[in-house]
């Protein structure tokens, strides 16, 4: 049965901040120039590793939002600031109740909870200001962003680990297409914390020298931190449109991908189907591409099967590190930049490409017309999301 394509939704504002820079302009400038933001770090004093740390100390939130003060909230509000005027215009035009908020994060305020636990272990009491509700829980991020923007529509955090903010964008699409909201601020944020630094180390998934997705020499991932946001609307215009958001579950393993990439293929095909787009119409794939031996091989095979082996594919984890809950939205912003500026970023660290990988990894930057980008995000629990962004509806 033929399926009618769903309406495309304009991205009317977007922003990203991470190891590449605090503003979207600086982030995209570094992406185009092929500069990495990864550096050696002792963020975990017990283990030196290569990380994508936020490039400056993030500023505290305004006094009225101090109850939510965490590194997550600081980075989020600092990055969000450049599109606050666009959000305020949407709130004024549509009404605060018709603007929704869906954010993705995997760790929330757990960095502050770790610090609080350490203080309690050492001194027997939690630090002043620690709040389970406002700082530890995901609700703190919601409260801070609501407070800064005036959004009063439905609001929730989607937490599906590394696909969280991609799923937030997929959820925003549902809120708009169902008529529940007229605009949705969606995106995500995550910070470096001991839980993820040591958790991924326990999985033996951390690269000693920095991630090299799709390379023959890849030996693991690099973690990063940052935030990215998109304002999606039912009506309007922008540099890019959300054409589809495919979702699937691997139903296979908590932390390993399905060996044949079944869930990845389902998500990519779902996105294409929603847009009514033939796979030959995809101009570029921003891969999940974490740099672990197993994940990249499975994803490459799945991409090849869905869109063929000639579409240029890049992983941007070599620039920012794996941003976990912020990855999907950040890479959606990269996809928008590819469309708006006509380039495919180099897949940093990919040379020499693993000979077992048959897809066209972009080992250098490509200048070309990019009208559609598939952007993949896969996660623990087999939670897969593939976003399809395009130059027009």
């Amino acid at each position, binding site marked *: 049965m033929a399926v009618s394509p769903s309406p495309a939704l304009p991205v009317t504002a977007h922003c990203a901040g991470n190891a590449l820079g605090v503003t979207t302009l600086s982030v995209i400038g570094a992406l185009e120039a092929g500069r990495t933001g990864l550096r050696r770090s002792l963020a975990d004093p*017990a*283990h030196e590793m290569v990380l994508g740390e936020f490039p400056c100390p993030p500023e505290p939130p305004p006094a009225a939002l101090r109850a939510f003060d965490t590194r997550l909230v600081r980075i989020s509000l600092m990055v969000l600031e450049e599109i606050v005027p666009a959000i305020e215009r949407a709130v004024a035009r549509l009404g605060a*109740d018709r603007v929704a908020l869906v954010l993705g994060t*995997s760790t929330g305020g757990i960095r502050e*909870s*770790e610090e*609080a*636990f*350490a203080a309690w*272990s050492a001194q027997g009491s*939690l630090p002043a200001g620690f709040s*389970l*509700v406002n700082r*530890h*829980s*995901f*609700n703190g991020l*919601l*409260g801070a962003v609501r407070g800064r923007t005036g959004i009063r529509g*439905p*609001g*929730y*955090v*989607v*937490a*599906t*680990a590394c696909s969280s903010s991609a*799923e937030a964008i*997929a*959820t925003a699409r*549902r*809120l708009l*297409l*169902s008529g*529940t909201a007229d605009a949705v601020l969606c995106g995500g944020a995550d910070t470096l914390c*001991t*839980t993820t630094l*040591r*958790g*991924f*180390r*326990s999985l033996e998934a951390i690269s000693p020298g920095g991630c090299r997705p799709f390379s023959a020499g890849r030996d693991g991932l690099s973690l990063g931190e940052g935030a990215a946001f998109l304002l999606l609307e039912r009506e309007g215009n922008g540099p890019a449109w959300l054409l589809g958001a495919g*979702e*699937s*579950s*691997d*139903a*296979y393993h*908590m*932390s390993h991908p399905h060996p044949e990439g*079944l*869930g990845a293929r*389902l*998500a990519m095909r779902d996105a294409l189907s929603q847009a009514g787009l033939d796979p030959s119409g995809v101009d570029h794939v921003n891969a999940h591409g974490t740099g672990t031996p197993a994940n990249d091989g499975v994803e490459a095979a799945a991409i090849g099967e869905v869109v063929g082996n000639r579409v240029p594919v890049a992983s941007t984890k070599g620039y920012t590190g794996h941003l976990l809950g912020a990855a999907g939205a950040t890479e959606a912003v990269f996809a928008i930049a590819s469309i708006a500026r006509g380039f495919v970023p180099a897949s940093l660290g990919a040379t020499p490409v693993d000979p077992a990988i048959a897809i066209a990894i972009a080992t250098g930057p490509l200048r070309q017309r990019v009208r559609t980008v598939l952007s993949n995000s896969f996660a*623990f*629990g*087999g*939670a*897969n*999301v593939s976003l399809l962004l395009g130059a027009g509806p």
Partner: protein
Amino acid sequence: MRSIHVAGIGLWTPRYPGLAALVDDTPGPAAASPPAALLPPAVRRRSGPLCRAVAEVVGQAAAEGGADLSRTPMVYGSVYGETSAAVEMMGAFAQGEGLPSPTTFHNSVHNAPAGYLSIATGCRIFSPSIAAGPETPAMALLDAWMLLLQRGGEAVVALADEPVPVPLGVPGAFLIAAVAFLLRAGPGRPARARIGAPRRGAGAVPPIPAELALHPCAPAFRLAAALARGQRGAVSLGDGGPDGWMVELAEDG
């Protein structure tokens, strides 16, 4: 607009063995752990207590409504998630260079119950995992309502929280408890009620036992009690006030 029907309910708490006990406030002997028969033994052993509670209530709701869980996505809502795993890891970190076990690490992610259930049921439809503070039950129901509008069929909404361990939580603040609603788009076998989309507004606040009233997902237990009593009209998913969220319950059919 499609009509959405509540086709099944599942409930697990250590003290109330079923919906009737919840409605009548007649606690039974304390139960140690949910059976979670939905999970294969190997998965059950690796999963945490919150995940097992979710599996138990999803299994109950699906059984009542006759749902095929291999084709039924779950919307999972929890205010705090599996904090026992997160705090266990913090204890290891306080020992210096300690690393968590890989299982504890992946059990700490918010979507661990969704992952484990998808493995158990073979369902490859995406199952969202969400949190929204006190609005978590309302937002989970809204998310499921939108999924049903998009895809049709059935979806199960599961809401659960476990006590937050010391030192982050207060001992005895609330007990582990979970509740699930099997929702169906369109007509089918007889259901408990039709349910509208969550929206802002005032509604009744159905009574529930005091120990569940303190649970972070208390409005979901109130909704289960209302459905079990055959209550109709606006039911609050918050404190009953007009700024909160509510749903309309109507006769099935």
